[in-house]
């Protein structure tokens, strides 16, 4: 049984600090090339197929802008 996950980033709240990135064990997340209205390159799921929904990114996010979903497949 495998776990499939996904994250939804509140891109307006994200400040692009990258702490989620380095805490992601599956290299799912990257910073977007585009910026939000504050001028931050926000985090996004660059490789969605990697995500296991482990919640590490959301746990360390200082701005609580990540919601995590997970299913067993």
């Amino acid at each position: 049984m495998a776990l499939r996950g996904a994250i939804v980033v509140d891109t307006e709240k994200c400040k692009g600090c990258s702490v989620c990135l380095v805490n992601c064990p599956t290299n799912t997340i990257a910073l977007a090339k585009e910026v939000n209205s504050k001028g931050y390159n926000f985090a996004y799921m660059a490789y969605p197929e990697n995500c296991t929904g482990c919640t590490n990114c959301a746990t360390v996010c200082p701005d609580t802008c990540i919601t995590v979903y997970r299913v067993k497949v």
Partner: protein
Amino acid sequence: MDLKDIIKPENRVYAKTPVLTENVMHYCPGCSHGTVHKIIAEVIEEMGIQEKTIGISPVGCSVFAYNYVDIDWQQAAHGRAPAVATATKRLFPDKYVFTYQGDGDLASIGTAEIMHACNRGENIVVIFINNAIYGMTGGQMAPTTLIGMKTSTSPYGRSEELHGKPLKITELIAQLEGTCYVTRQSVQSAAAARKTKRAIRKAFENSALSKGTSFVEVVSACNSGWKLSPVKANEWMVENMFPQYPLGDIKDR
């Protein structure tokens, strides 16, 4: 499997706690304050004590903690939060009362207040953010600043001759009979943040058991003050702060 099949309410495993407000935090990107605020809010939600919790915010970056954690707050004068919390807890003994203080607030100007509140064994929780710098006023030297660390008031690095050694106030606090739980944690990684959450939860539970003061230091990064990127600041913290401020429980009874 399509993303839309995963992103469904029934599959949600992590979301913002409603105890956090919708306000965007004023903290710099990557600041540890946000993570600790979130942890406190999650503990309050999980324990179901939103109506019974009163926070005391300090002077410093986290002066505005009340904008983010949706409970009743009192904003104290610099360093005086433990005195404010003392009266609040004694006059509302059934409430959960916690202070949230930085290193300048707790370990410098408020040394007398924290020592005596802890020594009296006030049934409060103290959350101590140690990032070795004054963030709000623009990066000045704190009592916990490391030897050699450059700040705006130690531009050539903190010197032992001039300023003395960094103050390990948490070890001092642990000596006081009134404290029941003294621990040092961090939030740079998911594992560390989860440990901090367990520590903060335990601290709040202690307060209901009238065991005395619970004191949780969170060794934190101030990337703006340290003039590093958020990720680099966390790495620097692990390398340089942890040897001086080792993580783990110092006292638990």
